[in-house]
């Protein structure tokens, strides 16, 4: 029986998802036993031409992480889509844009200007910018274009499944990969992980009083968290209520409130908006001036707090 063909690819990626894949550890060998890896830029030497050579749909599953930031990413994922039966968006960036999607709050021009001209350690008095094409000694060199927005994978190609997380846990990764390899295909569009938000599996959920009302809010570093009490009740933002579970509440058990990397549950399109909504609902301040004052004093940064990983799904693009 022919072995399944798997491709891995990284777009605008920090490398963390690759580490998570490698963290499969001994399961990795099971994977290599079960499948032929035909592309894996971080670990193996296959090139774009190798992918272009294979027949359309001949790759069984392409696992792609990172956001679509450069024209090259767009090109490669479109190629992989053509060549693959299934495409999986792996990690928060491919799923929802991830942390790099926060750059969608800035224009392309302002980003490039900062990086190449304004940053404190840059000396570039002539304001030179990278070109997409240049000829040197009669050789043509190309660089990909920096796109206007950072998009999640499904803005550019059709995605079959999502493995959420920043990075996804080894458990979730293995659960997804093995179910696909064994032919146990979930419905298209399925996001692996729990069907319910993190509170469902969080060990601190039962410590909540009947009504959760916050008289004030703090940032995590402004308080010492009691590890045995729900963090929300201690006045800090926990994204747990608005985040898909399935990670076994790792961060909670590590004394940190959830920051939302698994994205929302089904039915919520933009996690950042729901997080803003739920959190402001339980703050018990009815005087607008007092509330505005608190927001300024604490330094609430709505995008950073509520949309840390998901701005790719909430970006308002000009119509």
């Amino acid at each position, binding site marked *: 029986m022919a072995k399944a063909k798997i491709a891995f690819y990284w777009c605008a990626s920090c490398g963390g998802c690759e580490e998570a894949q490698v963290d499969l550890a001994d399961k990795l060998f099971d994977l290599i036993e079960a499948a032929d890896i035909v592309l894996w830029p971080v670990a193996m030497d296959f090139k774009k031409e190798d992918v272009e050579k294979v027949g359309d749909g001949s790759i069984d599953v392409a696992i792609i992480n990172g956001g679509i930031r450069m024209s090259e990413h767009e090109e490669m994922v479109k190629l992989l889509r053509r060549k693959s039966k299934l495409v999986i968006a792996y990690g928060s960036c491919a799923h929802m844009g991830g942390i790099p999607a926060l750059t969608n709050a800035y224009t392309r021009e302002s980003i490039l200007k900062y990086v190449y001209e304004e940053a404190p350690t840059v000396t570039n008095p002539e304001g030179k910018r990278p070109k997409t094409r240049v000829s040197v000694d009669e050789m043509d060199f190309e660089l990909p274009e920096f796109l206007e927005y950072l998009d999640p994978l499904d803005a550019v190609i059709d995605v079959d499944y999502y493995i959420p997380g920043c990075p996804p846990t080894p458990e979730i990764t293995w659960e997804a990969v093995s179910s696909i390899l064994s032919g146990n295909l979930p419905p298209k569009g399925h996001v692996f992980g729990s069907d319910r938000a993190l509170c469902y599996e969080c060990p601190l959920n039962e410590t909540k009083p*009947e009504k959760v009302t916050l008289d004030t809010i703090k940032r995590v570093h402004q308080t010492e968290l009691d590890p045995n009490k729900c963090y929300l009740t201690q006045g800090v933002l926990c994204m747990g209520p608005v985040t898909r579970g399935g990670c076994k509440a790792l961060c909670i058990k590590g004394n940190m409130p959830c920051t939302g990397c698994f994205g929302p549950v089904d039915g*919520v399109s933009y996690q950042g908006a729901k997080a803003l909504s739920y959190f402001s609902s339980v703050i018990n301040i009815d005087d607008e001036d007092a509330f505005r004052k608190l927001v300024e004093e604490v330094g609430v940064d709505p995008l950073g707090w509520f949309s840390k990983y998901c701005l790719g799904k909430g970006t308002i693009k000009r119509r």
Partner: protein
Amino acid sequence: MSEEVRGSEDIRIGVYVCHCGLNIAGVINVKELVEYAKTLPNVVVAKEYIFMCSSPGQNLIKEDIEQYKLNRIVIAACGPEMHEPTFRAAVSEAGLNPFLIDLIAIREGSSWVHYDDPKRATEKAKDMIRMSVARVRNLEPLEKIKGEVKHEALVVGGGVAGLTAALDLANRGFDVHLVEKRPTLGGHTAMMGVLNWEGRRLSGREIVRTLIKMVKDNPKIKVYTNSEVVKVDGSIGNFKITVMRKPRYVNERCNLCGKCEEVCPVSVPDEYEYGIKKRKAIYLPYSGAYPERYVIDPNSCTFCGKCVEVCPVNAIDLNEKEGEISLNVGAIVMTLGHDEYEPAIGEYGYGLSKNVITLSQLKRYLSDDGPTKGELLVNGTKPKNIVFISCVGSLGTTPHANQYCSRTCCMAALSEMLHLKSKYPDANIFYVHKDIRVYGKDEKLYWEAIDNLIKFVRFDEPPKVSIDGNKTFVDVYESTLQERILIPADLVVLVTGMTPIKEVDAVRSLFKVGCGGDGFLKELHLKLNPVESLTGGIFLAGTATGPKSVAESIIAGSAAAVKASILLAKDHIEVEPLIAEVDESKCSGCGICVSICPFNAISMQKREDGTRYSKIDPLLCEGCGTCIAACPSAAIQQYGYKDKQIIPQILAVFGR
């Protein structure tokens, strides 16, 4: 509530555009709207008519439902407040679920306000129709929610409003449970003693006695004095109440002989005499109190047992324990009453001189059944100069005063002034006032006062009261004469107003009723629903909602009884089904919704595996939708206002 499985349902929409005579058609191109509506997906028929709300208009819809098998209706006319019930009834008659229609106000929202630009008014109306079609496409059939109604009532508070409400309800045929926190019925009317009525002075206790006799004689009213409600569960039509009866320590064998009172070693200020007299720890609140027997005040009693020794009929049991009573009622009338504003020590000299008293204390002095049998003696002699200061604690006269006017104090004060003048014709009586508010028929008190040479001194700045040994002086800047006046007063009477009862926050959170900015219980609507609260099944009457006279409280008590009886007369109530519901399969048990529901309609449940999920009581849910917006899992939806019924409207604005 069951939902039809939508799946393959073929949505067939009928759009009806009303001319409303020329109100719409005079500005908007109705034909254009009809033609446009026909182009929208799922619209099977689009028509116009001159008055959709008329019989022929309604019949048009009914016939089309039949003929074209329509299952959703859009009516572009006036707004839902006008004719939603009309059209709901009409489509019901044609066999279509009444919640599958949408009425949009192209009249109020377009033709009546954009009459200067008919083209854009028509464009806006088109958008409104497109939005309505988008909404209606996703509407689902709904059924009204039924709840049972228990034909019993709870009245909380046994003052005149509560007594009246209880009597009216009992006479209507309902069993009534009347719970009163004090050891006797009668509230403030019994305490204050004397009432003013069109210039006459009546005994408040007489009025109360009359009401109490009727209550006593009515077998449908059960009275629980010395009792408080401690738990309220359930909702409109079916409240489960727990009442805690505090021990009285004196049982029904008491024959009012008073021997216990004689030997009791403890003396405390008598609240039924506004502190001008003392009572013992074992006491009879007032003659004619109900129940008519002594009671022990556990806060001052030392439980020495002397009274037990002397009681000839063994009526005292110092070991009496509190008791719990469970009630199941369909409606609640809250007649909590009020407290009197208590001046602070030093406020106009209050508490620093015994010559500074409140109006209530004065009324007790002047009552025939008071501690001085109606005689007022100051320093052993009849008073010469009596100065009344109005608006003490009211009208924002001082920084910690309430802003509102207490309504009844001026007429009470003037009534006492006239009585004083007739009793002590040589006395000089001053009314140092901010404003005079004697309204209606009591206006004549004012003119009588002038005829009787009562001197009116008006202030903008509150007067200062200074005490020099036995003498008191009232220093006031008269605003009309623009002169400073210093009045040596034998007696200073502070005219104080009404405040909410001190435990109002605890009580109202028990019943889940709201209060206004001033702390009084809040009516559903000041004019249209003055005796209903925001919580279904709970009615409000008397001074609990704001200062009122005794007559006004009695009127309110009757009104609340009428409103409550409308509910109690039903076997079932039907509640609008536009409420929220939790999809348990999506619920993570995060508890956010429970925390924010203002009606406490949501509670946490446990699954078998120990995990939690929330559940909404359909009879308590008022349909605000706040939980839906807050639910971080989108696990809650509101019937009629689901995300899938709102977001398509937004997309439809832009033609998507």
